[in-house]
């Protein structure tokens, strides 16, 4: 009997309505942008998808002025119930155009279509829904009877969840009455510019949302612009530190969501098969391009062998390849630079003596791909246990007692997320108390919901996104 080879089941790229060029969105219009245009690639094929106009310093200034004008004249004066209706419209338009957005996201980012289709885009819509509901209820947010918006928010987002991170930033900002200048990541600007079209379709007043594509220098213009009241940044800890330094001593309010090196702690009484799923989801979801990825597996010594055997079998069933194929589990690494970084760190793991196991799944000849890899025998001192790899590479360490698990889990300058696997409820809650992380998942991993705040301790940043707590980032209490 022949093997069960799933025939290719690709989503059509025509659905993305890809255009040859995209332009910045400022003051309600698409404008040429006087920065050097950038070319955005399909990381799965290394082909150019489109040319994208970028914002120069002058364009950023125009965008901030447009945002200021919209803030003063329209948005901050509008009753919350009316703001809410615009945000509900945006939520609905994202739902209506979800398939187009999902295909475009997978083309531009390299993530599997099943993730963009089932997670990124619906969760982005959910964020707008959730925050639309807050717009006329801010007096119930626990920040005092009449919380006021901050003004113009400058927002800079990463390439790992382009549309979702946009939603995390823009939805709360608009709900609380702020206006926005947002810079999408250099390698993934396309869905943000389709989102700009959605703002037009929603008849959002001009200037409330401005999208300014560009590289780090564009981001710096936003951060340093004197008329920006708030900076929200998601990205690397390295850049986060630069931003914090830049706004230090100014009146700008700042929230940072930075890197992580999450511990996923598996006790010997865990529901093992589901723990394996959680480990796989924790590190291979979105090619491991997740700041809260469960990149350090801490397994109790009494169960590590059984766990590793199950884990390797499960990882060997992951399907790597064309991001547009509905059966692809692991898509492309977002850029050549990122791929090089992952390779370099994986090599350091081998050099430092960890045992490398890599899935034998076929890897396409073109495009940026990295086969899922598990390092066992990893020690706290190795680079792959300390540095954020941001790729499909898992480091497996062991522990003997709960105290040792806590000590190892907390032994990092980061503190974004953590996972706990045990059937014992009291141990979950005790561990959750001990772990220095902004999000703790028990018997699950990588769960996101607009109603649940997300953010980190220590060098993983400060401020929370989502939930009632997330509104604090955009309001004067």
């Amino acid at each position, binding site marked *: 009997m022949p093997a069960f080879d799933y025939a290719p089941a690709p989503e059509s790229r025509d659905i993305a309505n890809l255009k040859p060029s995209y332009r910045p969105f400022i003051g309600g219009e698409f404008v040429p942008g006087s920065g050097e245009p950038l070319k955005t690639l399909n990381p799965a094929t290394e082909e150019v998808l489109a040319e994208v106009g970028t914002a120069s310093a002058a364009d950023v200034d125009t965008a901030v002025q447009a945002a200021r004008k919209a803030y003063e004249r329209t948005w901050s004066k509008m009753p919350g*119930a009316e703001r809410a209706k615009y945000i509900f419209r945006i939520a609905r338009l994202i739902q209506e155009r979800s398939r187009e957005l999902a295909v475009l996201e997978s083309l531009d980012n390299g993530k599997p279509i099943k993730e963009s289709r089932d997670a990124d885009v619906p969760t982005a819509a959910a964020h707008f*829904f*959730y925050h*639309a*509901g*807050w717009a006329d209820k801010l007096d*119930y947010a626990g920040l005092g009877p009449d919380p006021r918006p901050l003004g113009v928010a400058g927002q800079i987002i990463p390439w790992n969840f382009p549309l979702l991170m946009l939603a995390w930033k823009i939805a709360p900002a608009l709900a609380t009455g702020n206006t926005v200048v947002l810079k999408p990541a250099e390698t993934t600007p396309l869905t943000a510019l389709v989102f700009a079209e959605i703002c037009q379709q929603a008849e959002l007043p001009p200037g409330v949302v401005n999208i300014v594509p560009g590289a780090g220098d564009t981001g710096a213009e936003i951060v340093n612009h004197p008329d920006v009241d708030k900076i929200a940044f998601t990205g690397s800890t390295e850049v986060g530190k630069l931003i914090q330094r830049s706004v230090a001593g100014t009146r700008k309010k700042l929230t940072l969501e930075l890197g992580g090196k999450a511990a996923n702690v598996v006790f010997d009484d865990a529901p093992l098969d589901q723990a394996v799923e959680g480990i796989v989801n924790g590190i291979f979801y979105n090619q491991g391009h997740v700041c809260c990825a469960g990149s350090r597996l801490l397994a109790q010594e009494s169960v590590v062998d059984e766990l590793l055997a199950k884990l390797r079998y499960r990882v060997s069933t992951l399907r790597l390849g064309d991001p547009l194929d509905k059966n692809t589990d692991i898509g492309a690494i977002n850029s050549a630079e990122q791929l090089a970084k992952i390779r370099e760190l994986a090599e350091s793991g081998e050099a430092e003596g960890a045992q490398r196991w890599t899935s034998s799944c076929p890897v396409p000849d073109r495009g940026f791909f990295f086969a899922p890899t598990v390092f066992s025998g990893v020690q706290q001192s190795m680079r792959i246990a300390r540095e954020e790899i941001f790729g499909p590479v898992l480091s497996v360490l062991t522990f003997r007692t709960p105290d040792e698990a806590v000590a190892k889990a907390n032994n990092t300058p980061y503190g974004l997320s953590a996972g706990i696997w045990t059937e014992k409820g009291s141990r979950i809650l005790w561990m959750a108390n001990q772990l220095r992380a902004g999000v703790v998942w028990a018997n699950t991993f990588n769960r996101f919901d607009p*109603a649940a705040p997300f953010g980190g301790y220590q060098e993983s940043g400060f401020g929370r996104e989502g939930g*009632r707590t997330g509104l604090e980032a955009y309001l004067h209490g």
Partner: protein
Amino acid sequence: MADRVSVAKTYKLYIGGKFPRSESGRVYPVHDAKGRFLANAAHSSRKDVRDAVAAARKAFAGWSGATAYNRGQVLYRVAEMLEGRREQFVAEVAASENIPARKAQSAVDAAIDRWVWYAGWTDKIATVLGAANPVAGPYFSFTVPEPTGVVGILAPQRSALLGLVSVLAPVLAAGNTAVVVSSADRPLPAITLSEVLATADLPGGVVNMLTGRAAELGSWLAAHADVNALDPTGAEPAERGELARQAADTVKRVLAVPEEEPDWSQRPDLGRLRTYLEPKTVWHPLGV
């Protein structure tokens, strides 16, 4: 050319997602404020109340068990459908309440916005009204509000749509199911609202709409042992004491309502939501 003869609508009840006639087989004429005949409304009986409560109970598990996000989406969809029927509601409210079209328009607009306000509450109730309790001991203790169950609503007699929406939406947003007795003399917007609910993804039985006399049906609702809470707004002030006494036999939650029908255009507080919620406190030990 002669004027076209319009096709008149038969106004029926809304029970369990269907539009039956009253079990009683009776109707009563509805007139506008000038005494002109508008329609025959179904005259609901105690057996209609019985059927409606059964339908509401059957729907409770699904509606209360749906995610707050899902409930919010469904309720927001209702607002979209209300907007689509705006002109019809304006005409019915104007005729029912004997107010000029412009005033009716603003009442309808306020009703739609009120619905949106409550739609946005579904996934915020727990975060605003729930709590993590800092108990003295190695326990994690938290409190979450849960829907109380089947709510009987005697809808306002005067404000046929805005009043109705203001009393119904909080019941649904909190995750309860409802049996509503509409305004007796102004029932048409309530029936049209049921048609909106029936086409807006709201599961059958979550709202059951009866037209008839609150004075006649109220005590059947108040005394029904499978009803968990009662909103007596539409009852005559003199009847409310008796309703409350009947409700006491099964320890129903009875909403405290003002003597006179309030000005529904005022923004509501959380009173109605809170009445239909049961805070539940959970304790769990912490330890290795």
